[in-house]
C-alpha cells in the first residue's frame, strides 16, 4: 500500500547508526523521512533531545531518501551536545525539525573553492557535492586544530578536483590555517566563488583574504537560535548594515558584508550558563557512575 507522505511526520526520530569520528565528534543517522525528502544543501535542522532539553541547530551532512534518514555530525561542546553524544543506535530523540533555512545558491559558476574548518566541513560536504554535480571545478580546503579533527576527507576528495589540508599544529597536511592556503591560491588563480563554513573567526579570515580579489564569498553562519523559524530573533546578525535573521534569511550570507565581530560576541552570550549547565551535567554523570560503582562493589562483597 502506498504510504502517505504526511503520515511519516509522526515517526519517532530514531538513531539508526552512529560513528565516532574522533573522541568529541560524532555522526548519527536519524529517521526523519520528511526532512530527508525535502532537504537541500545549505539547510539545517533543530534537535531537542528530551522533555527538558533545549532546541539546538545542527547541520545536515547527507540524506538517505529510501531509508528516510538524515545524517548529522556534531562536536561535543556543551551539555546538550555531550548528552547527544552519549546516545546510541536505537535511542530516539524527542524532536527533530527541518529542513530549515534557505537552500544554498548552487549554480554553475566555474571554479568554486570550498573552505571548511572543524565540524564546518560537515555542512560543507553537501554543498561541495552539489557544486560538483552542477558542473563546477571544485577546490576544497579543509582545516582543523589537529589531525583527528579533520573529518569527511574521503567524501570531500570524491567530489573535489583538488583538496588541500591544514592543521594548526602541523600534525596533518600543512601547518597553518585554511586562509593561508586560500591566500596563496588567489595569487595564482582566478576563482568564481568561495564558500566557507566553520568557526566565525575562520570565516572572517577567509572573507578578508578574498575581499581584495573581489571574489564573491558566501559564509554559512552558526548563530544561536531558539525556534529556527524566524519567530524570536536570537540569531540576528548585521549584514551590510541591515539586521537579518540567520534562521530564515540565511544561514548563507555574503561574507564581505557580515559583521563577524558582532556574530562572535553574540555567540558568547550564554557562556556562563553553558559552563554552569555543563558542570552540573558532569556532576550528575559522576554521581551516577559512583552509584553504579558502589552497587558493583556491594555485589562483589
Amino acid at each position: 500500500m502506498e504510504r502517505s507522505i504526511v503520515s511519516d511526520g509522526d515517526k519517532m526520530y530514531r538513531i539508526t547508526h552512529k560513528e565516532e569520528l574522533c573522541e568529541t565528534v560524532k555522526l548519527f543517522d536519524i529517521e526523519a523521512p520528511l526532512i530527508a525528502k525535502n532537504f537541500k544543501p545549505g539547510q539545517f535542522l533543530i534537535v531537542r533531545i528530551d522533555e527538558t532539553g533545549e532546541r539546538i541547530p545542527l547541520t545536515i551532512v547527507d540524506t538517505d531518501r529510501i531509508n528516510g534518514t538524515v545524517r548529522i555530525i556534531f562536536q561535543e561542546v556543551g551539555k546538550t551536545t555531550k548528552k547527544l553524544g552519549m546516545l546510541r543506535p536505537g535511542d530516539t530523540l524527542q524532536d527533530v525539525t527541518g529542513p530549515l533555512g534557505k537552500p544554498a545558491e548552487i549554480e554553475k559558476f566555474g571554479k568554486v573553492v570550498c573552505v571548511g574548518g572543524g565540524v564546518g566541513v560537515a555542512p560543507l560536504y553537501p554543498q561541495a557535492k552539489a557544486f560538483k554535480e552542477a558542473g563546477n571545478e571544485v577546490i576544497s580546503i579543509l582545516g582543523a586544530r589537529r589531525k583527528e579533527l579533520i573529518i569527511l576527507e574521503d567524501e570531500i576528495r570524491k567530489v573535489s578536483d583538488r583538496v588541500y589540508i591544514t592543521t594548526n599544529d602541523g600534525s596533518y597536511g600543512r601547518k597553518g590555517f585554511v586562509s593561508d592556503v586560500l591566500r596563496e591560491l588567489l595569487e595564482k588563480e582566478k576563482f568564481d566563488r568561495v564558500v566557507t563554513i566553520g568557526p566565525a573567526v575562520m570565516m572572517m579570515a577567509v572573507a578578508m583574504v578574498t575581499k581584495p580579489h573581489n571574489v564573491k564569498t558566501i559564509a554559512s553562519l552558526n548563530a544561536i537560535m531558539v525556534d529556527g523559524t524566524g519567530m524570536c530573533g536570537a540569531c540576528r546578525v548585521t549584514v551590510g548594515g541591515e539586521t537579518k535573521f540567520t534562521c530564515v534569511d540565511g544561514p548563507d550570507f555574503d561574507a564581505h558584508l557580515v559583521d563577524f565581530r558582532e556574530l562572535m560576541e553574540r555567540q558568547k552570550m550564554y557562556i556562563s550558563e553553558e559552563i554552569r549547565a555543563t558542570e552540573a551535567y558532569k556532576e550528575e554523570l559522576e554521581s551516577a557512575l559512583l552509584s553504579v560503582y558502589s552497587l558493583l562493589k556491594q555485589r562483589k562483597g
Partner: protein
Amino acid sequence: MPIIKEKTKMKEQDPKERIHNFYEVALGYSPEEALREADRCLQCKNAPCIKGCPVNIDIPGFIKLIKDGKFDEAIQKIKEKNNLPGITGRVCPQEEQCEKYCTMGKKFEPVGIGRLERFVSDWETKKGIKLPEKPVPTGKKVAIVGSGPAGLTCAGDLAKLGHSVTIFESLHKPGGVLIYGIPEFRLPKKIVENEVNYIKKLGVEIKTDVVVGKTITLEELLDEYDAIFIGTGAGLPRFLGIPGENLNGVYSANEFLTRVNLMKAYRFPEYDTPVKKGKRVAVIGAGNVAMDSARTALRLGAEKVYIVYRRSEKEMPARNEEIEHAKEEGVEFLLLTTPVRITGDENYWVKQMKCIKMKLGEPDESGRRRPIPIEGSEFEIDVDLIIIAIGQRPNPLIPQTVKGLKTTKWGTIEVDENGRTSLDRVWAGGDIATGAATVIAAMGAGKRAAADIHKYLKTGE
C-alpha cells in the same frame, strides 16, 4: 432583590508574594462567588452582550444556567460556540467586548462575564470533561496549519462536524502563542494542555515539528487534503531600528517569552534553555506583550523594571487589568518616552539606553495622538536587559513559499469574510490574515472559516 453595583471580586495572589513565583495571579471564583455574580445578570431579552462576542456565545443563556446551579449545563452552553473557554475566560479583553455592551455596565460595573466563563470551565476541568456525541464521519480530510487559537478552534469545529482533521505545528508543543507567548502566571500551561487535549479527544490529530513550507509544502498538503486552513499567526518580532539593538542583552519580547514560557528557562538548569535575568530591565512598548515581559522579568529577579512608552497612559494598548497588575507589582512607567540609542560596554553587553521625551501632537491615522520628540530632552537610564515589545508581523513562511497566494502590503494573507484566500481549497484566519490581534478574534476567524469549509465540503461550493 437589591442591585449589587460592583462586580464580585476575584481573589488574587498578593503582589508581594506573586512577583517571586510563576503561579497564576487570578485565582478564580468559588461556586458561591459565581452564583452571586450570576445573580447580577439582568437577563436582558435583547442580550446586547452577545453582539460584543466574536464567537457569539449565548451569554445570558449560560449565566442563567449558573444562576440555577446548573454548572455542567452552563459549560455545555458555552461550548456550543467556544471550544476553548478556559483560555478565553482568562485572556479575552472582555471590557472591550461582551462586558462593554452589558446593560448593568451602563450605570454600574458590568457583569463579570469572563470570570463566570472561567469559573464553569475550571469547574468542568475539575470534574472531568464531557465529550459531545461522536459525529458520523464524512470521509473528508482537512489540514490545519498552526495550532494557535485560530487553528485549534477551526479544527475543533470541523471535527465536531465529522471531518477528519490534522493540525501541523512547527514547534514541539501545540498551542501557538498560548504556549510560547502568554506567561504561566496569566494563562497556566496546564489549562492550555487541557484545552488542546479536548480538541484531540474530538478526534483531531496534531503533528508537531512540521514546518509547512519547509518540512512539507502547501502543495503537498493539497494533494492529500480536501481543504486547508492557514492559521500561522503573527509571530515575527519587530525591532526599533536604533543603534545598539543587536547588543547582547537585547531581546525581542518573543524570544524572551519563548525562552521562559515554551522552553521553561525560569527553571534553568533543570531545563536546559537559559535566559538572561536582568537586574535593571527596560521593556519597550505598552501592549499586553510588554506587560507580560515586564512582569516576567520581575519574577526572574529583576530589581527594577521599566515600561518605556512613547505615548501617554491613555493610549497604552494593554488591557487595564494587565496595567494594574504591572503597577501593583512595582513596574515603573516611563511614559512619553522613546529610546534613541542603546550603548554597550567593552564586552558588547547592554549598559545604557538613551531616551528622548515626547509630547502628543495631532491624531494620526490610528486616531491616537502622534508622539513628537521634544528637542534637547534626551536622558540616559542604566539598564542591563532590554526587551523590545512593539508588535509582531505576520509569519512570512507560507506567503513566501506558495505561488498564487495573494497577500496585502502588510504581509497578511488576503481573505474574504469567510476566510477564503485567492487559492482554491485554501482558507486563512487569525493574525496571519488580520495582523496582530486578540486570541478571541483569531478564534472567531477560525470558526467562520470552519463553517465555510464545512459548506464547501458538503456542497462543493
